[in-house]
C-alpha cells in the first residue's frame, strides 16, 4: 500500500516560491491501477516523483508498506527504489546498450549473475512481445517498441509498484491502447500496483480502477473510476471528464435537467419510456456518455416541456430508475 500523507512540494524559483503540491493525501491499494489525472502543470509528475523520492517532498510522508521512505537512510532508500519501477514518456532507454542489455540493467545493479540476468531478460522480452529484438539497439525501434522494452526493463527488477509518467503520451492511439493493455495484463498477471500519470481521460478509462484528480497542486477528488466518471463533483473533475463541455449556449428549452448514468443502463430506452409511460416528450440537448468496462457512464442534458406538472412527472419517473441520478440545471444560459 502506498500512503501519501500531507505531501507538499515547494520549488524555490527566481520569482518566488512555487507551490507545486499542496497537502496531498492519497492512499493507493495493493494491486490497484491508480490514475492521477490533471491538466498540464497540475503537478502530476512532481507527485509521482515524490513516490520514489526522486523529488523530496518539502513536507509530508511517503509511506510504502508501513515504512516511511523520507525517514530512510540513503542506502536503504536506494534498495527500496529497486522495488518501485518507473516508465517514462521519453522511454529513457540506454542508447548504447542492446535491448537485452537494457533489460539486464536493473538486475546488473542489483548484483544478479550475468547468465541468469540474460535468461530472465529473454523471458521479459517474451512477455512484452518482442523476443526477436534482443540484440537490436533502441535507436532501431519504434516508439511503441521502445516503451515495451522499457516495460520489460521495469519488470526485470521484480517490482511491487510500477509508476508510469505519461508513458503513452508520445505514442499514437493504437499503440497507446496496445501498451495500456500490456500494462493492465501485467497488473492482473503479476499483481503489481500501477500508478498511471496522464492528462488523458481515455487512458484512465482504458485501464484504471481508481482515479485522483489533481489541479494546481491540489487534490480535487478521488474515488473509483465509476464514481468519478458518473458524477464528477468538482469543477476540475468535470473539466477532465467532459473536456468538450456541454455547450449551454445552444440550449433552447427553458427547463433543463442533467441526468447521470452510473452504469448498467443505456439511455435510449429511457427517453423512449419517458414518452410512452409519462407522455413527456424530452429533448436531448447534449450528451457525453462513454463505455467503461462495458457499462454506460456519462451525463445527458434533457430539455423538458415548460409545464410544472410534466416536469414533476418526469423527475419522479427518472428518479425511480436504477443507476441514474438527476438534477435540475438552474444556471443555464438560454
Amino acid at each position, binding site marked *: 500500500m502506498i500512503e501519501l500523507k500531507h505531501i507538499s512540494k515547494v520549488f524555490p524559483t527566481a520569482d518566488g516560491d512555487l507551490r507545486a503540491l499542496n497537502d496531498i493525501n492519497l492512499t493507493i491499494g495493493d494491486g490497484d491501477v491508480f490514475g492521477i489525472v490533471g491538466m498540464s502543470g497540475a503537478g502530476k509528475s512532481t507527485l509521482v516523483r515524490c513516490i*520514489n523520492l*526522486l523529488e523530496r517532498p518539502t513536507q509530508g510522508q511517503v509511506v510504502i508498506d508501513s515504512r516511511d521512505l523520507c525517514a530512510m537512510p540513503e542506502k536503504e532508500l*536506494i*534498495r*527500496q*527504489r*529497486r522495488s*518501485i*519501477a*518507473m516508465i*517514462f514518456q*521519453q522511454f*529513457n*532507454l*540506454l*542508447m*548504447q*546498450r542492446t535491448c537485452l542489455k537494457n533489460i539486464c*540493467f*536493473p538486475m*546488473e*545493479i*542489483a548484483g544478479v549473475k550475468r547468465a541468469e540476468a540474460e535468461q530472465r531478460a529473454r523471458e521479459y522480452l517474451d512477455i512484452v512481445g518482442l523476443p526477436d529484438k534482443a540484440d537490436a*539497439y*533502441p*535507436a*532501431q525501434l519504434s516508439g511503441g517498441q521502445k516503451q515495451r522494452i522499457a516495460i520489460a526493463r521495469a519488470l526485470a*527488477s521484480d517490482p511491487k509498484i510500477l*509508476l508510469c509518467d505519461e508513458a503513452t503520451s508520445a505514442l499514437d492511439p493504437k499503440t497507446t491502447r496496445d501498451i495500456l493493455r500490456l500494462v493492465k495484463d501485467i497488473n492482473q498477471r503479476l499483481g503489481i500496483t500501477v500508478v498511471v500519470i496522464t492528462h488523458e481521460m481515455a487512458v484512465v478509462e482504458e485501464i484504471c480502477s481508481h482515479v485522483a484528480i489533481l489541479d494546481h497542486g491540489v487534490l480535487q477528488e478521488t474515488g473509483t473510476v465509476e464514481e468519478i466518471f458518473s458524477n464528477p463533483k468538482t469543477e476540475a473533475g468535470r473539466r477532465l471528464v467532459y473536456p468538450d463541455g456541454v455547450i449551454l449556449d445552444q440550449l433552447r428549452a427553458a427547463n433543463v435537467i442533467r441526468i447521470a448514468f452510473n452504469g448498467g443502463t443505456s439511455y435510449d430506452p429511457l427517453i423512449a419510456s419517458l414518452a410512452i409511460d409519462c407522455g413527456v416528450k424530452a429533448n436531448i440537448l447534449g450528451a457525453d456518455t462513454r463505455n467503461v468496462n462495458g457499462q454506460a457512464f456519462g451525463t445527458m442534458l434533457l430539455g423538458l416541456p415548460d409545464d410544472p406538472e410534466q416536469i414533476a412527472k418526469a423527475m419522479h419517473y427518472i428518479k425511480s430508475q436504477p443507476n441514474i441520478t438527476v438534477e435540475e440545471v438552474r444556471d443555464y444560459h438560454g
Partner: protein
Amino acid sequence: MDELFGTFFGNTPVSQQLAYLQAALLENIWETVYSTVLATVFAYVIGLPLGIILVTGEPDGIRPLPRGLMRVLNFVINILRSIPFLILMILVIPLSRLILHTSIGTNAAIIPLVVASAPFVARLVEGSLRESDAGVIEAAKAMGCTPFQIVRKVMLPEALPSLITGLTTATITILSYGAMSATIGGGGLGTLAINNGYQRRMDLILYVTVILLIILVQIIQSIGTRVANRLDHRITKATPKAKRHKADKAGIG
C-alpha cells in the same frame, strides 16, 4: 645529388641532411609517439576524474559537493588553461625536478604536457558528460543506482563516442604541444624540426618532420573518428543495401 638541389633545401648539402635524417628520424618519431601516449594517459588519469566531478559535483548533480570546493576546482582549471604552454613549461621545472630529479629530456618534457593537458581533458570530459540525457540518469536513479553506478554504468558508457572524440582532440593537442618541448630539451619530431631544421638551416629536415607530424595527426584523427562512429549506437546507420536502394530511387548510379 647535392649539385642537383644546390641550396634549395638550405645551406647544408642534401646528402648530409639525408644522412642525418636516416640516423635520427626513427628515434625522434619514437620519442614523439612515446611522450604523446604517456602524457595522454597521465592527462586522462588526472583529467577524467576531474571532469566527472565537475558534472556530478554540481548543486543539482548526482553527488553534489560543497560549492566552495567546486569553485576552487573550476578556478584552478581555468588558471592552468590560461597559461601559455611555453611559459608553463618553464614554471613546472621545479615540479619536474621534484618528481624525476631532472628537468630536461623526453621524460621531463612529459610533466608540463600533463600539467597543461589534464585541465583541458577535464573540460573535454565535462563537455561529453553534460550531453548525457537527464532522463536516462533519472531512470537510473529511479532503478536504485548508486551515484557511482550511475557514473560507471550510465554516464560514461552513454557518452563513450563523445569521450572518444574528445580523446582524439586531446591526443592531437598533446602531440602539437609536445613539438614545443625542444625548449626544455625534450626529444621528438618538434625538436628535430626546430634544432636541426630551423636553427641549422636543414630545410629538408624541417619539411620532412612537418609532413610526418601532419601524417600522424591524420592517422590519429581518422582512427578516432572511425572508432567513435563504430561505437555509437544512437544513430541507425543505413546499410549499404538501403543506401543503394535510395540511390536507385533518386536515379543515381
